[in-house]
């Protein structure tokens, strides 16, 4: 029978069927973070249940850590209890923790692939909805809640209903200054914030094949913003080359063995999908959100839509978004003055994201009155960027260059905007109040965010003179 890649990974990892009809799916790699893990540790202790496979479990401090240079546990006072509980829980349970001062600390979705902890064809779980970021290396990942996290710690499996299969085919070639972020925002705009609910999504097509692994991770990262829990790209030679030599990737004979298997990880030619979506990326321009959900997107040359012209089911939310964002229908996005720019998060904080932004910023200065910050996705990314001198490029331009973590994506570490500010952000959610009370968030790519910081207004990076 012809099978999709999803079926191949699922079927291999299916341990059995539980009494309630759910499949028990083995989880090869489990990565925890401090915001949720302490609940799970406390619950297991109360139930006197041990962690079954501490050796397959990793932990990071990412959501609540301060980004200020020289930070410690208490630099963000509201984070210190989480950070300490995480340290204690990991110590008691024998879990490898990338602690706040670890040279490889960072956002779980950045750290796991860059160290080769997550592998093609592996199942992966994180108590965070952006878990499927690692789908960029061909892993099948699931974001989960705290109860599920506790369940995985105790059993190393998840009890799941098998999702349906969707393929998103991205044809064509991306223009200069157009990235996976723009593609992902366009797909969400097309199929809506619940368009992939109940599906595992495979991204395929020429535009995906041409994407470097970091861009594929950006693409898979935003999968949950259209309601899909798992999204991935079939691994290929680019994936294998990217993984080779990373610390936790198998070596020697086991690498050869793994590689032979990884080369079989593709959907069969005639495998059937429950839903197929196709998008031609050739003429795509940089995209940006205008509203308060990630499907409220226009091209950078576009205008805020008139809610009256939208489908009846989108009208009320568009009206409410216009009001929250303080935007009148018909307002062009380009040219809107901004107060703040944030470059970072599990969506866009890997080295190539920072290189792209730095290329726009180099030799220029952040517009007066704009607060701009760059937060690396991991301490490793930060170190690599510094070795390339990117920190100087950003600092000389007037950006804040901080320590790695989730930072202003959800503001769990205190990095937030002020009420009423307009912020262009490379993150994943433009929800009301997420980046601070009454902060107005526009999601965009690192290139667009960088150009906006320089212009002080939402900018089309393609129109900046000399932009590489």
């Amino acid at each position, binding site marked *: 029978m012809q099978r999709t890649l999803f079926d191949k990974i699922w079927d291999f990892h299916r341990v059995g069927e539980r009494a309630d009809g759910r499949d028990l799916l083995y989880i090869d790699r489990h990565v925890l973070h401090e915001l949720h893990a302490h609940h799970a540790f406390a619950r297991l202790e109360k139930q006197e249940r041990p962690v079954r496979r501490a050796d397959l479990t990793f932990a990071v401090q990412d959501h609540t850590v301060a980004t200020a240079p020289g930070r410690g546990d208490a630099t963000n006072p509201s984070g210190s209890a989480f950070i300490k509980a995480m340290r204690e829980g990991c110590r008691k349970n024998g879990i490898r923790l990338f602690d706040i001062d670890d040279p490889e600390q960072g956002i779980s979705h950045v750290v796991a692939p860059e160290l080769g902890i997550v592998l093609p064809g592996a199942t992966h779980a994180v108590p965070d*909805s952006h878990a499927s970021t690692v789908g960029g290396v061909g892993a099948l990942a699931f974001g989960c809640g705290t109860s599920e996290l506790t369940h995985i710690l*105790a059993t190393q499996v998840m009890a799941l209903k098998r999702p349906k299969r969707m393929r998103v085919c991205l044809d064509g070639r991306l223009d200069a200054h157009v990235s996976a972020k723009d593609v992902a925002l366009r797909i969400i705009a097309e199929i809506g914030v619940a368009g992939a609910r109940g599906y595992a999504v495979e991204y395929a097509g020429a535009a995906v094949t041409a994407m470097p692994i970091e861009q594929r991770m950006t693409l898979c990262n935003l999968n949950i913003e259209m309601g899909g829990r798992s999204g991935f790209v079939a691994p290929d030679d680019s994936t294998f080359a990217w993984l080779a030599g990373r610390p936790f990737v198998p070596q020697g004979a086991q690498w050869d063995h793994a590689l032979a298997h990884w080369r079989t990880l593709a959907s069969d030619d005639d495998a059937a999908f429950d839903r197929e979506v196709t998008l031609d990326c050739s003429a795509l321009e940089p995209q940006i959100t205008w509203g308060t959900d990630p499907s409220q997107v226009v091209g950078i040359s576009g205008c805020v839509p008139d809610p009256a012209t939208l489908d009846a089911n989108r009208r009320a939310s568009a009206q409410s978004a216009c009001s929250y964002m303080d935007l009148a229908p018909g307002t062009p996005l380009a040219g809107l003055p901004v107060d703040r720019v944030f470059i970072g998060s599990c969506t866009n904080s890997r080295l190539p994201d920072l290189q792209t932004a730095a290329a726009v910023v180099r030799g220029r200065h952040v517009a007066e009155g704009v607060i701009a910050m760059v937060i690396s996705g991991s301490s490793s990314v930060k170190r690599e960027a510094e070795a390339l001198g990117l920190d100087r490029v950003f600092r000389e331009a007037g950006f804040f260059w901080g320590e790695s973590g989730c930072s202003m994506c959800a503001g769990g570490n205190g990095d937030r905007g002020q009420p009423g500010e307009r912020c262009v952000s490379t993150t994943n959610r433009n929800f009301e109040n997420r980046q601070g*009370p009454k902060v107005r968030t526009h999601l965009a790519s690192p290139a667009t965010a960088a150009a906006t910081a320089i212009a002080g207004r939402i900018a089309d990076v393609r129109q900046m003179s000399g932009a590489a």
Partner: protein
Amino acid sequence: MEPFTRHTGIAAPLIKDDVNTDQIAPILHARGLKEDYQAMLFHRTGRREDGREDPDFVLNKPQFRSPGILVTGQNFGAGSSRESAVWSMLANGIRVIVAKSFADIYRENCLQNGLLPIVLDGDCSEAFIARVIEVDGKWPFTVDLVAQRISGPGGGDVTFEIAAADRMRLLEGLDDIGLTLRHMDEIGSWERRAQATQPWLQSTRDNR
């Protein structure tokens, strides 16, 4: 987990689509490990810019201050996987959410905590919403999971569908981990099989 059989309470209409977990349970600035889930629920959505309560927000209206049932639109619980978005409902006495649809992770988190997620679709949903708005918190509704039925003022009983397995789990308040632990032999066999065929999955060695 507390079993769910029947629940009687005031039904509060939050008639919006795509209500997300950042709205339901915002990450607040001053916090510790023992959070105030009762205060967390819709903390920012229910407030004005000056921090004072927004009297127009449904759960701030006098008749809806102690609701037992929340009635809402499409894709409820989108966004972050934080389970506090379920705990904060329970902390406020809400044991049932009636929606047109739920985000996947949120629905799962409901089932894990004995919060009954009911999906009513199409006309049935619109009619029930109209009824809840009309009743305006004057009388309670009763949700019976055994009979899969909502009864209350302003009309006849409304029946709802729920997967048999989910229903059983809620009715019995089953311990999810306990259910899975019955399969430890199979999990062990799977690990041995993986060790034999894809050994790199069963170990994590830092090769440096």
